[in-house]
């Protein structure tokens, strides 16, 4: 398979050992997040509230799945696996996505709230990677940031309108926020060895710092819209996804997503 992104440079620190393993774990978690959320977004194709948003969210789904592919290629380059196998041939407990990204779509309010919380978290995470001295990974992060900028615009536009509309719209948004918040904070559950990357200077900001920056970004925006959430309790609240613990929603998602692939795992697409 032709890579979408140039092979990573391999400085001494990445040739072997704990930093290499820690970077692989981080990239795998990011890839799994993007793949699951991309798949969930794609389930709205044909069903979104208006045709324009249907097209826009479908495009965002394609973006996220494209990002997953780029990240899987980097994981594969580090551990000798195959991107398609990583995406389609693992059991649920082998995935490292945060539980937030596997949850079913629910209503449009939940979809928007999840996308909004996730994209703000992803922005913080990508910024930490974009500031890495590992040149190719920093460049990769900057490439992904270009599309993520639009995802934030789309999410912000919908989020503020649902919040400002009052009535049922706002009530549903608050319910969705209550449902999604703890799962969203768990996006920053540490991946194995991530502190090592920070200590080695390979990652600009660790999980706790990222979580704090994220809370400091979304918290005031929620406040400005008069929405309530328990910011202080939630940071790094629930753990699980990064250790392979998942909900039945992931099993359902994987069954659906891999159904074509499983008809002939050796086929070349």
């Amino acid at each position, binding site marked *: 398979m032709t890579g979408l992104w140039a092979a990573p440079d391999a400085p001494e620190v990445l040739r072997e050992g704990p930093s290499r393993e820690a970077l692989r774990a981080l990239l795998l978690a990011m890839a799994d997040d993007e793949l699951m959320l991309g798949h969930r977004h794609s389930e709205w194709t044909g069903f979104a509230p*208006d*045709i*324009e*948003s249907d*097209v*826009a969210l479908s*495009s*965002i789904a394609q973006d996220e799945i494209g990002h997953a592919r780029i990240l899987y290629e980097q994981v594969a380059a580090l551990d000798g696996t195959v991107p398609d196998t990583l995406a389609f041939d693992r059991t649920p407990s082998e995935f490292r996505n945060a539980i937030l990204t596997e949850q079913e779509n629910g209503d449009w309010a939940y979809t928007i709230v999840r996308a909004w919380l996730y994209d703000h978290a992803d922005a913080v995470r990508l910024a930490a990677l974009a500031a890495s001295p590992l040149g190719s990974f920093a460049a990769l992060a900057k490439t992904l940031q270009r599309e993520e900028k*639009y995802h934030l*615009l*789309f999410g912000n*536009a919908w989020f503020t*309108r649902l919040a400002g509309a009052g009535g049922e719209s706002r009530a549903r948004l608050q319910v969705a926020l209550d449902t999604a918040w703890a799962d969203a904070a768990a996006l920053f559950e540490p991946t194995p060895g991530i502190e090592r990357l920070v200590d080695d200077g390979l990652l600009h900001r660790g999980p706790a710092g990222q979580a704090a920056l994220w809370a400091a970004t979304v918290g005031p925006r929620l406040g400005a819209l008069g929405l309530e959430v328990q910011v202080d309790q939630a940071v790094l609240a629930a753990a699980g996804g990064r250790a392979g613990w998942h909900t039945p929603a992931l099993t359902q998602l994987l069954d659906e997503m891999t159904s074509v692939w499983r008809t002939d795992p050796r086929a070349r697409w």
Partner: protein
Amino acid sequence: MNLGEITPGARHVFAVFRQETKNDAHVHVGDVHAPDAEMALVLAKEQFARRDPCVNLWVVRYCDIDATRYEDADMLEPATDKSYRFGGSYREQQRVYRRR
């Protein structure tokens, strides 16, 4: 819906203009439904800028567009031969028209 008609529907339909490069004029490429201009721009990006080159988008509410009436279209047709106005033999004109 007609251009310039102020109806509740017209307030929520925006004409989208796409500019391919900074040296090109904005060209009307289609419409989006949106509650306001900001949302119209967000939605227009994926409807009209995901395939073709684009450096800039405009959105304009249909009810903000003033237009001539189709009943008056005859006044736009010359009554006598005005081909002397075309200027087709000027090199600059040829360059401009060839691009279309």
